[in-house]
């Protein structure tokens, strides 16, 4: 029997993050294809999280119900860890390691959130195994070998990676790469295995840093229906304003390729692609983006793509629904007229 373990990251109010559900969906598909494979989940909680009366280890009913409702899993481990009220890579990884030591999974899948991207390599180091970051596809063969696929080295190269002998085979996958399954009938419900660990007293290896959660990050970009993506065609801060104004006007998110982040023009939270976000807008408008393999892996789910590029041979022009050969600044100038002038009129571009 092959086993896949999935790290289920939870939000502050105990919800499983969507990326965890996406991983369950994909793992169940892999399990079905490979045969003789069971899928498990593991979640780590602090003690404070649970509304608990006197005993810090009385679990929240709602959380247990959530875990018990994760169809497709054979079992889910819930670790209640006194002292791990906020995330920290090493102690969290040590808890996960306890789970891996017990379950001995062939595969360990982790969502590519900041926390997950810290947990995966930490667990890997503790177990002397590999972890492939940001896989865009995975496959499991009948022997339990995991094929880890991702763009690598830039320049349109896709690499296939394996972990020949070390176990578990670990991979992180960004949110939005896989689909959740809606199929529930016929699938078993998991048993919930509750484990309690006191990481506070008498356990120096779980010592934690002093931390205070300071507030929510600004905007969430993935949600917007229209995304304007700018790329290497944007050279300086001055070039940005027209696109920012446009986005404000039409209610779109302004995002970008990695070079724009490297140039310090937009923060990393706005990067689309392999090492940024996967987006799934109704409409993506790409200005001066070449469409590297890394960038394209983040826009697979975009419904409609308009690309504006001077180079008709840029890869993005091949995959776009409407590849338009034009100078992005000339188009932007026309849009600026609209953005500046037209508020009462009927949205026609002045020719």
């Amino acid at each position: 029997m092959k086993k896949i373990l999935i790290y289920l990251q939870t939000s502050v109010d105990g919800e499983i993050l969507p990326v965890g559900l996406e991983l369950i969906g994909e793992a169940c598909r892999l399990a079905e294809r490979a045969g003789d494979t069971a899928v498990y989940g593991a979640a780590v909680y602090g003690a404070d999280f649970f509304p608990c009366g006197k005993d810090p280890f009385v679990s929240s009913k709602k959380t247990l119900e959530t875990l018990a409702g994760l169809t497709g899993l054979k079992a889910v481990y819930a670790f209640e860890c006194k002292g791990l009220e906020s995330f920290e890579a090493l102690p969290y990884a040590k808890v996960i390691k306890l789970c891996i030591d017990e379950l001995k999974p062939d595969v360990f899948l982790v969502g590519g959130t900041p926390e997950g991207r810290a947990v995966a390599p930490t667990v890997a180091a503790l177990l002397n195994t590999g972890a492939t970051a940001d896989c865009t596809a995975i496959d499991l063969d009948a022997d339990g070998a995991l094929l880890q696929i991702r763009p690598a080295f830039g320049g349109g190269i896709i690499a296939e990676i394996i972990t020949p002998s070390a176990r578990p085979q670990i991979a992180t996958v960004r949110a939005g790469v896989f689909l959740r399954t809606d199929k529930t009938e016929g699938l078993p419900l998991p048993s919930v295995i509750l484990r309690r660990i006191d990481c506070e007293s008498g356990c120096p290896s779980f010592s934690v840093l002093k931390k205070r959660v300071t507030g929510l990050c600004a905007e969430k970009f993935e949600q917007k229906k229209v995304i304007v993506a700018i790329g290497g065609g944007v050279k300086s801060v001055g070039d940005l304003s027209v696109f920012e104004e446009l986005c404000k006007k039409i209610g779109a998110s302004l995002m970008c390729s990695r070079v724009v982040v490297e140039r310090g023009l937009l923060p990393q939270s706005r990067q689309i692609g392999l090492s940024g976000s996967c987006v799934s807008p109704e409409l993506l408008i790409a200005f001066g983006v070449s469409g590297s393999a890394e960038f394209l892996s983040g826009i697979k789910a975009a419904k409609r793509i308009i690309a504006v590029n001077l180079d008709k041979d840029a890869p993005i022009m091949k995959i776009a629904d409407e590849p338009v050969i034009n100078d992005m600044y000339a188009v932007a100038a026309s849009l600026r007229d609209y953005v500046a002038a037209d508020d009462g009129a009927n949205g026609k571009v002045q020719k």
Partner: protein
Amino acid sequence: MKIIVCIKQVPPSGGIVVDETDRVQIRSGGVLNPCDARALAVAVMIKKRLGGKITALSMGALSAESTLRQTLAIGADEGVLLSDKAFRGADVCVTAYTLAQAVTKLGGADLILCGQQTTDGDTAQTPFSLAARLNIPAVGFVKAIEFTGETPIFIQELSGASAAVEARFPMVAAIGLSAAAPLAASLKERLDAAKKPLKIWGLSDMPDSDGSNYGLIASPTRVIKISRISTEQKNPPITEPPADTAERILKAVRAVVGGR
């Protein structure tokens, strides 16, 4: 205060070359990885307040010496380059093991600063892997630094939240692009850098000098195949006046969000 900054020489933008036989990246010169430049700037900032010594540590080809020399001009006090054929082709797990060996040989450190990610690998994993090897805490995805008195506070990005993490030594911090502005060296600093110590360590200098624990052979992961993607043209390119493209875009937007 002993500070080690892990730095990497990376190919200039878009210039990664791969050896097709064993699918390992070919290293031949390059630039200081952008996040590492920020990590070094943070090290300099912390040293100014707390005093101490900054060691720049790098693993790479001998060509990485020039990049290490550059960090000496920017503010590192000494440089250590780990360079040996035996180290070639290391994945994250083994890279972190090699760096941890060097940290041990350096007698440990209070603070190990890394760039969060490199432009050529972009996995963001090595800092966490290194911390796990050394069994010390790590704070990752640091987007800003503050101080409470003399204690550095790392502002860390989490899912949908930020956390302020008080430094407690020894620890690893992985520094993102926005945490600090990179420093530039003056001519005098560059001249002075030539006089600062720069050591090159090979396999035999490591506490564990068993070659089978390093490089490609020790790496748990293997790249078994690389292929170039080729996509077919989905739709023919459109040539039209810019104003028509603007019109096209606005029409498409209206189709999604409604309105005029």
